[in-house]
């Protein structure tokens, strides 16, 4: 149907594409843990050793765990399996609240305690007007 040259060009382009995909795949695979933006409290529990480096822990702010006083705020990040206590002094983003996603960046004191230097709010993919939210909660 097509000439030999056309077939060869298709073959050339497709194999180049496959080669590059493979390179990128292996590259990302070797980066593995470094591609993820944050780790969960469960990941911290299973860490072989605690590093002195800055890490990011993500999860939900546990309900009724948020304590705010004049100097710092304390809360618990949970992934519903494991938890970690976080302390932070500074301003928090608008979307930071209980039962919402959060990423805390800071240093581990031990496996259960993180001294955060920065708090980022992670919001979910749900968008709706306030009235709809109220109606949904009314149904619960």
């Amino acid at each position, binding site marked *: 149907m097509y000439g030999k040259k056309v077939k060869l060009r298709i073959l050339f382009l497709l194999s180049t594409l496959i080669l590059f995909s493979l390179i990128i795949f292996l590259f990302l695979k070797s980066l593995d843990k470094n591609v993820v933006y944050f780790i969960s409290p469960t990941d911290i529990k299973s860490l072989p050793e605690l590093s002195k480096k800055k890490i990011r822990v993500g999860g939900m702010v546990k309900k009724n765990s948020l304590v705010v006083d004049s100097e710092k705020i304390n809360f618990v990040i949970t992934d519903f399996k494991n938890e970690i206590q976080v302390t932070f002094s500074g301003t928090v983003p608008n979307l930071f609240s209980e039962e919402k996603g959060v990423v805390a960046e800071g240093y581990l004191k031990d496996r259960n305690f993180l001294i955060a230097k920065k708090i980022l709010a992670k919001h979910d993919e749900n968008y709706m*007007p306030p009235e709809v939210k109220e109606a949904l909660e009314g149904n619960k």
Partner: protein
Amino acid sequence: MINHLNLNKIFTITSRSQKYILFLFIIVISVGLLEALILSPEDYKQSDAVRIMYVHVPSAWISLGIFSLISFLSFFGLVFKIKNFTIISKSFAPSGFLFCLIALVTGSIWGKPTWGTWWAWDARITSMLILLIFYFIYILSWKIFSEKDKAFKISSYISIIGIINIPIIKFSVDWWSTLHQPASVNFMSETSIHSSMLFPLTIMTAAFALFSLLIFLMKYNTELIRIKNKGLDRL
């Protein structure tokens, strides 16, 4: 591929259609902006900050769409030696680049009040930056290679390799834990944006698509004039 007669015919079509597209664009963007900025409800959690979404998300979609189009056209352009496809690709690139930049900038502006940071090196944002760089190199490759045949080939190779990045952007939020939230609009499963917010999002996407088409027609016309001036009777 295309003879002189066809070239003139295409030129007539692309010149005449511009004003209709412009007219349509003005109508759609007016409706879109009215819906997005005034009529649509505020979000239960983000309140008015959610309105950035109506620019951010459509720009990201359009920039991904245009890059995919460029890659496919370049692929078939290379395989079947259809130079017209490559010229179409070249003419689409500037609007793709623009929308990619808009997506990154509005994302940054949105990120500061909601997440608490301008920038995060998470998988989604970084891969989007890589897309911007791909656009940049693609456009640059047309500028630096004065030899036509070379520019055709090298730019096409760049766009074909760049297609690998597109699924990475799309699925980055599912494959890795990112600060960026997962996709809200899904074709397979349920969409997690309320319909009153989905409507302006769709209109804005249509408006941006029309804008890209308009810029494309202008760029494509310029290319056609350039070919005509050179006295070449075929593309």
